C-alpha cells in the first residue's frame, strides 16, 4: 500500500521520481476498482480532505520544502493533483459501466458473463467496412512465382534495358547479320539509326536473352541468374497476340554444368511451380544461342496427362525453350573468364503470359493490357 514518503531533497530528479512512484500506485489501485463500494473507498483514500493522499502530499512535500522552493513545488503539486482527479473521474466512469452491466445481467438472467449493454447491440450480419487492397497484375504475379522458385535454387535476379542494341539482342547471341533466324523475331526498330554501325543500332529487345551477355560481361563465372523482364515484338494487340509480353530467362554457368543438369534443374523447377506430380520431357529444338537446344513440355497440369482441351488432348503442354550455351556466345565474353573449353552452361526462357493464360484460363491475351478493374480484381 502506497504511503507518502518524505523527500530527501527538492531537485528536479527527486521530484520526478516521487511523482512517478505516486502515479504508479494510483494506476495500480485504480485498476482494482470495480464496484461502487470499492470506488468510494478508493476516492476517500486519495481525495479525502483531511487524510487523503492529496492532503498528505501537500502537508509532507510542500510543508517541508525550503522557503525559496515553495512556489515551484506548489505549482508542481497542482499538476499532480489534477492527474489524481482525472484518474478518479476515469475510474468512476468505468465503475458505472460495470454496474449497469451487472444490473442487465441480473435482469436477463444471464449467468457469470458480463455482457455489453443490449441497447448497443449491432446487426452483426451487415457487411463490414472494407478498406480495399490493390491487386497484383496476374502476369507479374506469375512472374514473381517463377522467380521465387529459381531464387530458392540459388539464382540471383538479373536485369537489362528494354531498348537494346543489335549487338546484345542478336549478334552476341549468335544471330549473324542477315540470318533467317532474325526474321522470326518480328523486331521493332528505333528510327533514325542509319548512321550508326549495324551492331550499335537500337531496337526493342525481342527476348530477355541479351541480359545473359550483359551479366557475363559484368561477372566472371560462376553465374546463376534469373531474368524477369518485358519484351516487345511487332505484333498488333488482339486475342492471341500482343506487342508487349514478359519472359523469364535463366542462365547457369560453371565448370561442371551438363545437359543432365539442365534437365534436372528445369524438372525440379516445374515440380516446385506446378506440384510434385508434374513430369517433364524434352525435344530437340533450335535456338542460335544454345547447342544442343531443346523444347520442354510439362505433363498437362489440368488433366494430369490424360488429355483435355487445354493440352489439345496430347497430355502435354509446351512451356519453354532451353539448351546448353553455345560456345560462340561464350566467345563474346571470353576475356571475362568464359573459355568454352573450360566452362559450360545452360540457358532457358519462358513466356509468362502463356503460363498465366494456361493457369487462369484467360481466353484473350489483350485482357492483360486493357486495365479493366473488373478483370484485374479477380486476381486478388
Amino acid at each position, binding site marked *: 500500500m502506497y504511503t507518502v514518503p518524505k523527500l530527501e531533497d527538492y531537485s*528536479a530528479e527527486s521530484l*520526478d521520481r516521487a*511523482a*512517478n512512484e505516486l502515479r504508479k500506485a494510483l494506476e495500480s489501485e485504480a485498476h482494482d476498482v470495480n464496484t461502487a463500494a470499492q470506488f468510494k473507498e478508493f476516492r476517500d483514500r486519495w481525495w479525502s480532505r483531511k487524510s487523503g493522499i492529496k492532503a498528505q502530499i501537500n502537508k509532507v512535500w510542500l510543508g517541508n520544502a525550503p522557503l525559496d522552493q515553495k512556489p515551484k513545488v506548489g*505549482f*508542481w503539486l497542482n499538476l499532480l493533483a489534477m*492527474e489524481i482527479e482525472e484518474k478518479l473521474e476515469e475510474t468512476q466512469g468505468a465503475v458505472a459501466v460495470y454496474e449497469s452491466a451487472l444490473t442487465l445481467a441480473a435482469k436477463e438472467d444471464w449467468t457469470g458473463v458480463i455482457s455489453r449493454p443490449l441497447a448497443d447491440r449491432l446487426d452483426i450480419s451487415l*457487411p463490414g467496412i472494407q478498406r*480495399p487492397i*490493390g491487386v*497484383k*497484375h496476374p502476369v*507479374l504475379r506469375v512472374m514473381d512465382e517463377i522467380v521465387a522458385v529459381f531464387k530458392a535454387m*540459388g*539464382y*540471383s*535476379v538479373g536485369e537489362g534495358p*528494354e*531498348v537494346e542494341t543489335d549487338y546484345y539482342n542478336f549478334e552476341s547471341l549468335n544471330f549473324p547479320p*542477315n540470318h*533467317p533466324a532474325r526474321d*522470326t523475331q518480328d523486331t*521493332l526498330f*528505333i*528510327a*533514325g539509326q542509319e548512321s*550508326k554501325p549495324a551492331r550499335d543500332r*537500337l531496337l*526493342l529487345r525481342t527476348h530477355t536473352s541479351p541480359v545473359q551477355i550483359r551479366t557475363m560481361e559484368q561477372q566472371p563465372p*560462376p553465374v*546463376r541468374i534469373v531474368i524477369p523482364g*518485358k519484351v*516487345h515484338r*511487332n505484333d498488333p*494487340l488482339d486475342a492471341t497476340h500482343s*506487342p*508487349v509480353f514478359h519472359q523469364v530467362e535463366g542462365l547457369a554457368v*560453371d565448370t*561442371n554444368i*551438363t545437359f*543432365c*543438369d539442365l*534437365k*534436372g*534443374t528445369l*524438372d525440379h523447377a516445374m515440380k516446385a511451380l506446378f506440384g510434385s506430380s508434374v513430369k517433364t520431357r*524434352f*525435344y*530437340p529444338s*533450335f535456338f542460335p544461342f544454345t*547447342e*544442343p537446344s531443346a523444347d520442354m513440355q510439362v505433363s498437362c497440369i489440368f488433366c494430369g496427362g490424360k488429355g483435355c482441351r487445354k493440352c489439345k488432348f496430347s497430355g502435354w503442354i509446351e512451356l519453354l525453350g532451353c539448351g546448353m550455351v*553455345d*560456345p560462340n556466345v561464350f566467345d563474346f565474353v571470353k576475356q571475362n573468364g568464359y573459355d568454352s573449353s573450360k566452362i*559450360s552452361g545452360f540457358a532457358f526462357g519462358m513466356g509468362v503470359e502463356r503460363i498465366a493464360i494456361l493457369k487462369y484460363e484467360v481466353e484473350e491475351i489483350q485482357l492483360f493490357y*486493357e*486495365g*479493366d*478493374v*473488373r478483370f484485374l480484381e479477380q486476381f486478388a
Partner: protein
Amino acid sequence: MRILPTWLREFVKVAADDRQLAEDLTSAGIAVESVQEENGATIYEMDLTTNRVDAMNHYGVAREASAIYDVDLKPVEPKLPKPKVRRIAPPNISGPIGMTSLTEQMEAAAATLDTDAFPIVIEDAQGCARYTARIVRNVKIGPSPQPVASRLELLGSRPINNAADATNYALNELGHPTHAFDLDLLEGGTIIVRRAREGEVLKTLDGVDRKLSTGDLVIADEKKPVALAGVMGGFDSMITERTKNVLIESAWFDPATVRSMAKRHLMHTDASHRFERGADWGITPLACDRVAELILASAGDELHGGQIDTVARRAERASIALHRSEVNRILGIDFDEDEIQRILGRLGFGVTRNAEGDFRVQVPTWRLDVEREVDLLEELARIHGYNQFPNTLPAFTGAVVTLPDEPKNAKVRETMLALGYDEAISITFISEQEAKAFGGGEPLAIANPLSEEAGYLRTSLIPGLLDMVGYNLNRGNANVRLFEAGEVFEKLGDGSIEDERRHLGFVATGDAIAKSVHSLAQPHTFFHMKGDVEELLAAFEYQKLHFDDQTPPYFHPGRSARALMDGGTVACFGQLHPDVAAARKFRQEIYIAELMLDRLYRHSLCEPRYQRISKFPTVERDFSFIFDEALTFERIRSAVEELRLAELQQFVPAEIFRGEKVGPGKYSVLLHTEFQSNERTLRDDEVAQWSAQIVAKLESLGGVLRAQ
C-alpha cells in the same frame, strides 16, 4: 511442309506404324506437328526448325528414320537411257552420286560433256558454286502420270504439267530446287550465270516485270536474263504445251545472295526458302538426273548428251575432331564408341576412329548446320533421345546477389497495393501527339511501328493509364485506382543515345471511400493523392521534402503539385487538366501522379529507428489565426520550424474556414500544437513562452491572432 510416310518408306524399312514413326521422329527433333488422313493416305504436317533445311524432304526424313531405328537407307539411283549425242558418243554416266565417289563422278561427267553443244559459264563463283544441267529433246508436254500428280496433290501443290511437276516432285523427294527451261527459247545456245546489269528487266513466272540491279544474280542466255537465280524462273522461257526441248537446271546458289534478292523483290518461293537456308552442294547431279528420269518417264523421248556439270568452286565440308571427353563434359553421360559411330554413320557423316579412341568426322554436304564439335554432340544427344538422359542438379559455388533496386521496387509496389491501387500494364507505345504533350524531352520514334498511334516509345506512364481509365469509364466502372511501374524513354544529348528510366504512374477517380450502409461516399481529391504520394516518399531517407506548384501543363494549374526531395523533383501529382479530361470525354475528376523512381532511388530506404516513448505529459495549445489567402500553410509551417522548438512535437492545421465573418481574401485557421519532453514534465511558463514565440512569428507573416 508435308511428308507422306508411304513415300519415305520407299527409302527405309521401318516396322513402326505411322503414328509411332511420327512420335519417334518428333523425339529426335524432326517434329511432326500433326498426323492426318486424307483420301486414304496418311499425311504428316511437319514443323521443322529453320536449321534443318536438309530434312525438309522425304529422303532427308528417311535418313533420320534410318538413324533412329538403325536401319539401312536405300540409295536414290535414277535410271536413264543411253543418251543420244550427235558428235561424241559418251558413256552412260547415270548412277548414284554419293559423297565418296563425287570426284570420280565429276571426272567422268567432264569427260562426257557435250560442252560444245551447250556450254555453261559461271561468271560469279561466289553467287553460284555449281551448275548442273541436262537436255531432254522431243518431249510431249502434258499432264503428269497419276502417281506423281496424286502425291503432289496430297502435299498441297497443284499439278501443272509433266515437266514442271517433275521438278516439284524431285524437290519434295530430295529437297533440291531445280528448274526446267524451254530450251528453244534460250538464245545463243549457252547459259551464263552472272550479275544482272543495271536497268535489265525480267518478267518472272508470276507475270511480274522485275527491275533488276547489279545486286541480283541471274541465269541468262546470250541476250537476256531468263531466271532470277534461286528465286524464280522467267516467264518467257517457261515450259508450255508448245515446248519441244527442255533444259534442266540443278544448281547451287549462295544463301546470302538469294536472301538479299528475295528480300529486295519481296518474293518468297520454295526455291528461295531452301537456298537461303543452305542447299546441298553435292546433290546437284543426282537431282538433275532424277528430274530427267521423271521427265523421260512421262514426256520424254530422247536424252540429249550427258550431264553438264560446271563447278565454279567446291563447297565440301570440313572434318571435325570429336572427343569422347567432350561428349561427357557437355552431355553428362558417356557414349560408347559403337553408338557414336552408328548414330553419325547413319546420318551420313564419315566417321574414323583414331588411336586415342576419339573420332574424326567428315560432315556431309547437306549438313550446313553442323560446323563444330558441339554440333555433333547435339546429333548424338537427339538420336540417343533427350529423355534418355538422367536428371541431375548441379552443385554451385557462387553467392546470391540482390540488385540494388530490388528492395525499393518491392517497397513501392507493396505500398501501392496497400493503398488500394490495382497493378496494371499498359502498351509501351504512344502517338506523336501524346509524346509531345506528356513528356519533356525528345521522344524516340519507332522505325516500323504497329500503327501511327503507336509510333513512339512512351515518355510518361500517364497516357497509358488514361487510356485504361477511359476503357473502364466506358464500361461503367466509375471507381478506378490503377498503378503501373515501368520504363519511359527519351533521346539524350544529340539524340544518338537513348535514356530509359523507371517511373511509377498512378491514377484515381471516383470514390476514395465507397458509399455503404455505414458511411457516405468520399470522392477522391487532391489531398488523397497527396497523402498517397507522401506515404510512398516516407519510405525513403531525406533531409527535406518540399512541394511547389510547378507542374506540367496537363495538370490542373491550381490543383497539382511537384514534390522535391532534397532539391530534386521526384513526383508530380494532382488533378488532370480539365481540357485534357474533356478531350478524352471524361465526365468526372481524374487524379494522376507520376514518380520519377530513378531519382527517388538515389535515396536509400529508411531503416526503422526506435525512439523512446516519453513518460511525461503532453501539453496542447491551439491558436486561431486569420491570414491572407496568399499565405500558404507551407509558409506558416516553415516559419514555425525556423523557431527550432525542440519540445514542439506536433504542429498541424486543425480547421480552416472562409466566409463573411473572416472577410474577403482571408481565411481563418485553427492551429493545433503539442509540446512534450522526453526528460521531464513541462512547466506552464515554458509553454507560455514558446506559445508567445509562435504567435509573434505568425504575426510577422501578417497573421492576426483571434483566440488562443
